[in-house]
């Protein structure tokens, strides 16, 4: 394990690993939910927590250069006095690092309108698997050639390590309002989600929580979330004051048309922040019920939300497991959480059976495996569900182009046998 303090030190560490043919794994804050930073075997773990300096904020161009270990929320805080913020806001934003966000192409509630990490990363100085430092992307609006930066974002440490990152900052909107709508059924809440989008409103964020998770979160924050609702929607709109006011009343109307029992509009920033604190604590608060959870991160077409949610409940019930749902409803990114106690004998089999069932149900409904958490170790062996052998081979070759040595975070993302004819190939490392 090592703790580099500069990109040159990352490069030196990777260089040494490369010479001794030791695999290496990048690690940020370790909040990843797919096991991407989990060491397999005995690799060199390169931890970026000491690289937590914001190198430069250019307020005029709205660009910040940061080291990879900078914590997501700290970046927005440092830009606050300039009226700027960094838009991608994973619920783990108080802890996760920008490097980890780049690694997983992280999303967050406010990515509905503003886009996920990739849309906000302009350039990355990457340490490749042989220790060479190279810049992908650039500050110009459209850099010539292939978008290798786009390729790197979301590569989960398998194409090298980000050592310096240039991100776009957005101006703070002049007006922000947050609404909480509560419903007597999940179907009504889901119909409202579609209704809002159909009405031509694109909220900054549109989140749904079902009954069990709402009660749990309320126990932690005491923000006045309704304990008796079957589902709640947390909606945020922002922009110019007049437009925002119109959208607030529009959303309220759509909600009531679909049977919302209450529409609460947060009165001030303190109330807004409390509501968001609830939403963002949801995963962590699970342990109030049971010590372990298994989480999926599938995306389904918005129109099929109700049906998929019903399937998810059935599948969990068939294995006698409790499932809770908290998710980015606006883009159909589901996070079904299976809640259990790993000390119960035989529980893992049931959890895996339910997990696989849920993924299959999502894929059958036209969905994909991961919205934002990445594939890592955990979802790796599910990749063939969505990609045929040709797709996997193409991805493996792309990866090889970045890392011919195969030392960068091996065993992650792509299942064994992804490369055509891999079984017949000489062992890793002997053919370079």
């Amino acid at each position, binding site marked *: 394990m090592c*703790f580099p303090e500069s990109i040159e030190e990352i490069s030196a560490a990777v260089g040494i690993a490369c010479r001794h043919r030791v695999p290496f794994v990048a690690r940020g*804050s*370790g*909040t990843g939910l797919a096991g991407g930073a989990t060491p397999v075997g005995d690799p060199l773990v390169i*931890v970026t*927590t*000491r690289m*937590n300096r914001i190198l430069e904020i250019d307020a005029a161009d709205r660009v910040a250069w940061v080291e990879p*270990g900078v*914590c997501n*929320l*700290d970046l927005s*805080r440092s830009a606050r006095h300039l009226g700027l913020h960094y838009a991608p806001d994973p619920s*783990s934003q*108080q*802890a*996760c690092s920008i490097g980890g966000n780049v690694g997983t192409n992280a999303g967050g509630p406010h990515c509905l309108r503003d886009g996920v990490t990739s849309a906000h990363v302009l350039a990355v100085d990457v340490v490749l698997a042989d220790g060479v430092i190279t810049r992908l992307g650039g500050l110009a609006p459209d850099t010539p050639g292939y978008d290798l930066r786009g390729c790197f974002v979301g590569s989960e440490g398998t194409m090298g390590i980000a050592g310096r990152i240039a991100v776009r900052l957005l101006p703070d909107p002049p007006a922000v309002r947050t609404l909480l709508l509560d419903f007597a059924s999940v179907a009504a809440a889901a119909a409202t989600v579609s209704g809002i989008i159909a009405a031509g409103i694109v909220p900054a964020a549109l989140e749904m929580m079902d009954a069990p998770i709402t009660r749990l979160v309320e126990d*932690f924050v005491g923000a006045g979330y309704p304990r008796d609702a079957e589902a709640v929607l947390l909606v945020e709109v922002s922009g110019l004051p007049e437009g925002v006011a119109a959208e607030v009343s529009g959303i309220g109307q759509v909600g009531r048309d679909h049977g919302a029992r209450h529409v609460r509009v947060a009165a001030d920033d303190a109330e807004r922040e409390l509501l968001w604190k609830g939403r963002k*604590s*949801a*995963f*962590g*608060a*699970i*342990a*109030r019920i049971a*010590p*372990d*959870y298994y989480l999926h991160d599938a995306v389904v077409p918005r129109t099929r939300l109700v049906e998929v949610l019903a399937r998810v409940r059935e599948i969990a019930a068939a294995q006698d497991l409790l499932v809770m749902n908290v998710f980015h409803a606006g883009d159909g990114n589901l996070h079904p959480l299976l809640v259990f*106690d790993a*000390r119960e004998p035989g529980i893992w089999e049931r959890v895996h059976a339910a997990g696989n069932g849920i993924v299959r149900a999502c894929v059958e409904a036209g969905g994909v495996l991961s919205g934002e958490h990445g594939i890592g170790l955990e979802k790796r062996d599910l990749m063939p569900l969505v990609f045929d052998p040709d797709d996997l081979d193409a991805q493996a070759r792309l990866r090889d182009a970045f890392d011919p040595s195969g030392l960068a975070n091996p065993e992650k993302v792509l299942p064994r046998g992804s490369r055509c004819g891999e079984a017949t190939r000489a062992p890793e490392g002997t053919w370079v």
Partner: protein
Amino acid sequence: MTRLGFDPDELAACVGCGLCLPHCPTYRVTGLESASPRGRITAMRVVEEGMPLDDAFSTVIDECILCRGCEAACPSGVQYGHLAEAARERVARRRPPMRRLVEWVAFVAVLPRHSVLLACTWLLLVAQRLHLVPARLGLPRLSPRSLRTPIVPDGDPTAYLFTGCVMDAWQRDVHRAAVHVMRSCGAQVGLPTAGGDCCGALHAHAGRVGEARRLARRVMASMPGDAPIVVDSAGCGAAMKDYGRLLGGPAAAAFSARVQDFAEWVAARGAPPLRDTGITVVVQDPCHLRHVQHAEGSVRTILHDAYRLVETDDDGMCCGAGGAYAVTERDLATRVRDCKVAAIRAAAGAMPFLVASANPGCAMHLDAAGLDVRHPAELLAAALDDPKGAM
């Protein structure tokens, strides 16, 4: 019960999400997982699973300031304070003999015996005058006049002021200010009778839980009746509010329910008339006030009429004092303090300022870094319409 002596469910409550990391001062300055709450909980887990209780484990546990910033941030409700105190207790049993002796002298021979502590304080005062005490230790400048003049309690108390051990010896002027403000609020102020002069917080932190319990019983006996117990040291207040759990039983719980921080007590009664001093005050939240007692709001309530209050931008991060921590883990304590001092100076900007701190340990630690620190009671007393009063 387990090897480290806590309920295994309490350990299982941590799901490893990492949301506590940024709130942990030792993680902030080191970037090390092993100096983070999640890392410490993992270490406890592997010890539970049979790894030896070795020096590495002791270091991991000792480096924790017990500020409980992580506990306040944890959405899973992990009771980190309980876990860490239990682990401390196990670790304390395997200290080298020399350290055990020093600790015994401090915890058993001096702190709970007020006359011995006062005698030591006189010696220290003399040493200070002879310039034998290095300034970096951060001891307050002891005053012979203050040490010589006891505080005289009122008869038939309507509220007690708990005076404590070190604080009564080293910072008695804070007590004087507190008594003055309490009287201005119309209270008759009682003091604990002999024996009730150490709350046991430092003992509990150092893993000496048995002694902490014994001291707690003495403190309870020293302030009978049902008058509220006002505490002007956030660390002592937090410990006394926890007697219910420490000792168990209805009497301890009832005693704990009477305990209030000085600011809480004044805020509930309404501050006496104050003049606007125009002075800038940066509020420092002692961890035991903010994360444990959740009473930091009251400090602002009572001061805001008289001072221009300024907040730091660090979510109430710990200053690194942590009871005896500033002495036992000096290097880390100093690095954590550097961050705090930078945040305080940044908050004040170009203005001359005072720092308000409701805990004597934090005050001394920050004072040693060159800040001018006052207790909220002193700030209030100075802003009373009649600052001299009937002292």
